């Protein structure tokens, strides 16, 4: 029937649009990538350190509840602390050994946190106890969720949001697409890149489990175009029986931010203050997908992760399999130690990562990388007044007016900042990166967010 077919003009317009669409989002910045330091290096396993320290708080949500006592001997993969409620995640021993202490320990976020110290058994082969591997085929949605939670899987992209919570979206929302985040837009980091290149089948297996659990028929893996080998590897191992597509994305920071990724991949805009599920999407990191595959292949919970150690302040940059709880000091030593002009150790990428206050702070589940900056790379602390050049407005991926917000922050007008959509700021730092006057915008916004949280709600 000729009438039923879309008109020539409509078809032309659709074709044109698909060619014009660049699979990107508006605004954003282009920081130097520096990925060449580690992008070509295969993932290696680091030797077990003498001691691991496992904080009870490694994920977004309530800290885990302690179930071991000082002096206990634990095997790799044993439960040390259980999830405290649904939005929480258990902590497992990342190495066999003796619990020598339970108490306060420096946390990578700069605070102190309750942590379990394990003296690693020096002659242990570090093989996990044999365990039942749940057969995901036969599991219901709820059983998959429980298995994922019990394995302590959290988002490995940095935020460490428990994966099982994301797999259980509110029942009134229909999820039609899973987006796998392989953007890895932070400079220096190549963790996800190497996972996609070396373990593409694990990523696809993880996707298969998620699609099964959620009953979702479509998955799109978004990868920035600067990782052609990752795209090739994923294409090569793509399953034939599932609707999985690999989508090359514009290279731009913050492409890997959930809302930006959804905009780039599906051209959907997550409403302000809402979750991705409200537009029918669930986003998972490629590392989380690969870990999910491992959990259902071997039964081993999340006890180790892949960490990029990079930067011009480290002697031998590397992509390493690191037991969770490895102290930064040991990790840096495994990479040849710091160079003489090392100036700052950052957990995570250099755009959103946190500078480390103590080298005893351990690698946790959400640690995507450790970047050591050299002296000349450290940001200057002096700043000039705002000259209203407008660059921050052109950089902000969520279209805020950072210069206006900063002037409010300086005088403590936090309520007005809230009205000006401060909550939509995800602290990506794009504004700060481009600011010619070197104004610490992201820091001001972070402080303002904290101040607003502390303040009792003001009634008008």
């Amino acid at each position: 029937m000729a009438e039923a077919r879309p008109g020539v003009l409509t078809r032309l317009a659709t074709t044109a649009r698909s060619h014009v669409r660049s699979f990107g989002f508006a605004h954003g910045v282009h920081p130097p990538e520096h990925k060449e330091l580690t992008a070509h290096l295969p993932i290696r396993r680091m030797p077990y350190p003498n001691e691991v320290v496992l904080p009870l708080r490694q994920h977004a949500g309530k800290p885990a509840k302690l179930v071991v006592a000082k002096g206990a001997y634990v095997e790799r993969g044993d439960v040390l602390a259980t999830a405290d409620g649904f939005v929480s995640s258990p902590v497992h021993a990342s190495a066999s050994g003796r619990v020598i202490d339970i108490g306060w320990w420096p946390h990578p976020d700069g605070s102190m946190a309750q942590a379990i110290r394990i003296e690693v058994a020096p002659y242990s082969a570090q093989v996990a106890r044999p365990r039942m591997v749940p057969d995901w085929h036969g599991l219901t949605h709820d059983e998959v969720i429980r298995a994922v939670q019990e394995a302590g899987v959290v988002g490995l992209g940095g935020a460490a949001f428990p994966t099982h919570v994301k797999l259980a979206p509110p029942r009134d929302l229909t999820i039609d697409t899973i987006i796998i985040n392989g953007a890895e837009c932070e400079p220096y980091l190549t963790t996800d890149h190497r996972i996609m290149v070396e373990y593409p089948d694990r990523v696809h297996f993880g996707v298969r489990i998620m699609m099964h659990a959620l009953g979702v028929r479509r998955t799109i893996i978004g990868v920035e175009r600067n990782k052609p080998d990752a795209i090739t590897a994923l294409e090569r191992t793509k399953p034939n029986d599932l609707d999985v597509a690999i989508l090359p994305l514009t290279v731009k920071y913050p492409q890997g931010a959930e809302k930006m990724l959804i905009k780039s991949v599906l051209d959907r805009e997550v409403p302000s203050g809402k979750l991705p599920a409200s537009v029918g999407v669930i986003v998972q990191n490629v590392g989380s997908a690969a870990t999910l595959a491992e959990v259902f292949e071997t039964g081993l919970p999340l006890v180790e992760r892949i960490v990029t150690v990079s930067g011009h302040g480290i002697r031998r940059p590397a992509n390493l399999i690191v037991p969770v709880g490895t102290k930064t000091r040991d990790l840096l030593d495994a990479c040849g130690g710091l160079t003489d002009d090392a100036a700052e150790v950052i957990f995570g990428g250099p755009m959103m990562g946190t500078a480390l206050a103590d080298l005893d702070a351990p690698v946790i589940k959400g640690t995507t990388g450790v970047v050591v900056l050299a002296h000349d790379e450290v940001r200057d602390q002096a700043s000039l007044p705002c000259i209203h050049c407008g660059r921050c407005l052109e950089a902000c991926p969520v279209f805020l007016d950072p210069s206006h917000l900063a002037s409010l922050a300086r005088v403590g007008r936090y309520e007005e900042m809230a009205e000006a959509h401060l909550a939509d700021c995800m602290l990506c730092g794009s504004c700060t990166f481009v600011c010619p006057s070197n104004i610490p915008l992201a820091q001001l916004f972070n402080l303002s967010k904290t101040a607003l949280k502390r303040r009792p709600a003001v009634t008008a």
Partner: protein
Amino acid sequence: MTPSVDRSMPRPAAMAAGHSDGAPLVITASPHLKGRDTTARIMWTVVATLVPIAGASIYFFGPSALLVIVASMIGAFLVEHFLGKGGTLRDGSAAITGLLLALTMPPGTPMWMAALGGAFAIAFGKLIFGGLGFNAFNPALLGRAFLQAAFPTALTTWPKFGGSWWALRGDTFALPFMHPHETAVVTAATPLGLMKFEGKSTALSDLLLGTTGGSLGETAALLILVCGAYLALKRYLDWRIPSSVLGTVAAFAALLHFANATRYPSAAFMLLSGGLVLGAVYMATDPVTAPVTKAGRWAFGIGIGVLVVVIRIWGGLPEGVMYAILLMNALVPFINRLTRPRVFGAPRVKVTS
């Protein structure tokens, strides 16, 4: 059962996380990377692109031009140095103000007036508001407005173009309160003055190259455009502002010219004469006194363009660029508020606050 927690555990050496050998590590807030452009770099690049324009003015108007530039910059520097917050000379904004102000003055302006103008521009155009970034009006134009109000004769006396390069173009070395010196300088009206009061046009080639009467830096339209294009390419100025100013003037003037060719000058004449190009490229684009949003910058430029034509055609003055920009400067906060972009994920309906 709550397992006991040993709170007396020795607190590890927190902070000052020095590695065994080498300097202590620092802790700064994210992001830890920084783009290459700095405010000082932007400002000094603008100064650098003004140098050829200043050079052209010296070539056209002789030593007087150089002396006016030097005097104006000294005035600006002294005030910035002694009244500024300290160290602010390095950001380069005082250099821009002093230089730009000089470029708006007639070649024969006495040096003391130029210096006073530079001092006024920095003190009352910038520092009184709180320094760089806080001023509402373009400091150079405010200085120029002050001079024109205080010394209307000196600021509207234009030496005739040409003659010996060495000849002074006016009472350059005059002192305050001195009676006007009867110099041999031949004065002539500027192209805009000729047009307004005598209905005479000037050859476009003269306007383009700068071989005509006028203020120091406003005559060589082509050179200014080239320098401005360089800054726009480096993204040190927003091309939207000069484009919308010049585009609006061209469109408006062309419309008038089309309606009555004998009464209204052509669009090309309007574009190239007076301080329009200098104003559009270097004054209206001052980021401090221009809107921050893209839409706002278009609106700002269009507003300036319309005002320039209105003042030139129907106003009492032959030139209106200065007042057009200053007037639009005053509207910048409103333009910013009205053109703030829609926040990502916010409802598309405009919410007025």
